[in-house]
């Protein structure tokens, strides 16, 4: 079981590494789906089948699909890939890698020195039932409030997306300085 956990984890890590290094968006998204599926397996191994399911359904199923839609809408072609390749070359990796490495090392040190975990031996997995009880028991307020979170996201996304069709973007002044009149026009329409 521990082997499988590590295996799944390794898959997830490799897939994620592929995600952030791909030049083509679609490839990256596919690797992302792989990573998410691997993670779902990790969840399941950890005894969280409900979370694993949600991971597959919501993350891989909904969110990633949303990304794919957008990629399709934007129609990013091969010139974009070339550009991505050029962006990813050279010294651009150095500083971020160092920072990431620093973060990784420190966090891993923290993990190693963590207090001995209070492991509940042989416990049953925390299934949907337990989660449901928790959600609609002690966390009922949280659930209610998260609906407002979603509402805020909804309204925001709706509002931002709403104007795409219209010609609501004011042209830029050649020198990049906004002219007040333009703004007025853009607004008053």
């Amino acid at each position: 079981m521990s082997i499988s956990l590590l295996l799944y984890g390794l898959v997830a890590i490799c897939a994620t590494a592929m995600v952030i290094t791909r030049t083509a968006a679609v490839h990256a998204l596919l690797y992302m789906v792989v990573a998410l599926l691997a993670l779902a397996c990790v969840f399941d191994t950890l005894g969280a089948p409900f979370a694993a399911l949600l991971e597959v359904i919501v993350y891989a199923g909904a969110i990633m699909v949303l990304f794919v839609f957008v990629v399709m809408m934007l129609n990013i072609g091969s010139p974009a890939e070339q550009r991505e390749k050029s962006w990813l070359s050279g010294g651009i990796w150095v500083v971020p890698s160092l920072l990431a490495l620093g973060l990784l090392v420190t966090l891993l040190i923290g993990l190693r020195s963590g207090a001995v975990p209070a492991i509940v031996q042989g416990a049953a997995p925390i299934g949907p039932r337990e989660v449901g009880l928790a959600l609609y028991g002690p966390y009922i307020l949280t659930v209610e409030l998260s609906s407002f979170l979603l509402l805020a996201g909804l309204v925001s996304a709706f509002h931002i997306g709403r104007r795409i069709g219209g010609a609501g973007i004011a042209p830029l002044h050649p020198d990049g300085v906004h002219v007040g009149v333009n703004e007025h026009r853009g607004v008053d329409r």
Partner: protein
Amino acid sequence: MDSFSFLPNAVLVLCAGSLVQMAAIAIRRNVAQDAVLGLVVLLASLAVILAPTALVLTGTLPLFAPDAWASYTAALVILSAIAIHIMSWRNSVLSDTSVGSEYYLLLTLATLGGVVMSSAIHDVSFFIGLEILSLAMFGLIAFRNARIDAGEAAMKYLVLSGLSSAMLLMGFALTFAETGSLRFLAPVATNAPEPLLASMGVILVLTGMFFKLSAVPFHLWLADVLEGTSIPVAALVAVLSKIGLFAAMVRYFSSINLYVSGPQVDEIVAVAVLSMIGGNLLAVAQTNIKRMLAGSSIAHIGYLLVAFLSPGPFSFASAAFYLAAYAIATLGIFAIIAGVMPQGSYISDWYGMFRRKPVAAFAMSVMLLSLAGIPPSVGFFAKFYIVAAGISAHRVILLLVLIAGSTISLFYYLRLILVMILPRPSDSEAHRQMPPITTPWVGNRALIALLAVATILLGVFPSRLVQSGRQLLDVPPPPGPSASP
């Protein structure tokens, strides 16, 4: 679990209100009607804060604290929201009937997020409040459809906010892994020798908080966002979100002994120093008034952190007072900009304002002096209060930095006043036409007048506010009712 939780009245009212607002939009779009509705909701939520009773739900986790600190900061958040609401009205950006209604809805939601945060005593409620606010802010920041800047600002904020939220969550997760509790900072209570993992978690949490507070070096987004978005939203970013977050931060650390130098305290000290110096230096270099205010805002967060780091008889009271002073002055400035010269984003646009709009210029000067901490404005007493707190906690080095920072800040505050007094130089920037000057609508005028009068009156007679503040906050806010984790 036979635990129980309070549900702050304001949260309830704001939730219900936002639903009503949404329904109203769905039924019939009318900006004026929706705006009034939003204002009513905000006022109602303000009114219920003062109500002595609070809803108590049994069988739930304790998510909210019903204490004075929560009421005070919630009231501050709602009052800020009301001010933002008032200055938004007749804003040229929002006068578009097709989208204006959502603006007020988002404002209500943002207020909800702020209020939730300010009374949160649990990681979950804090996270939810934070994200309600963030999501509402994405929409609000991007609200200036007419300009690409708004989109860019929203994008930057979104990516970085996501990053910092992830950090925050990682931090929560690590502390949870270490302590098994999602209550605010149970680790300190449970584990006597501070475990490394938990303290790392706290540091990650701090990253998330500092990002939202825009403390150096997590501040870089603020200036861009303020510049990119519309003025009322800038006020929201600079004031409302910070009040909520600072309130939560105070509560999050209320059980840590801030006297003892640990990694977290060291980090906060370092960040406070950097913010006071960096924010002011940043503001000095700016020519854009909103970016300048961003720098100023960063610096003020630094000052607040000094109060935060000075446990003692004055700590929270001084922070509370400072929050109010900062909110009054900053909101006042944004209200004036919004009312008088919504497009006057460059400092040089404000030349000769004392001749063109003497009252507004005077009010602006009062606000700037308050931010600079010069009597007889309330900012002076606030700074005095903070320095008193710092002195009583022997934070001498921090205070020296505070003074250095304040001295730098004088430069840019005064420069703006100076620009308003001086006539426009004939040679420079002659090619650029001045943005038009408008007359603020009566509500905004009343708002400006109220804030200006409050700035001076509270500066001269701070006694009452201090008194009530001290009564409210005599004891530091507890992490919550004494329920077992």
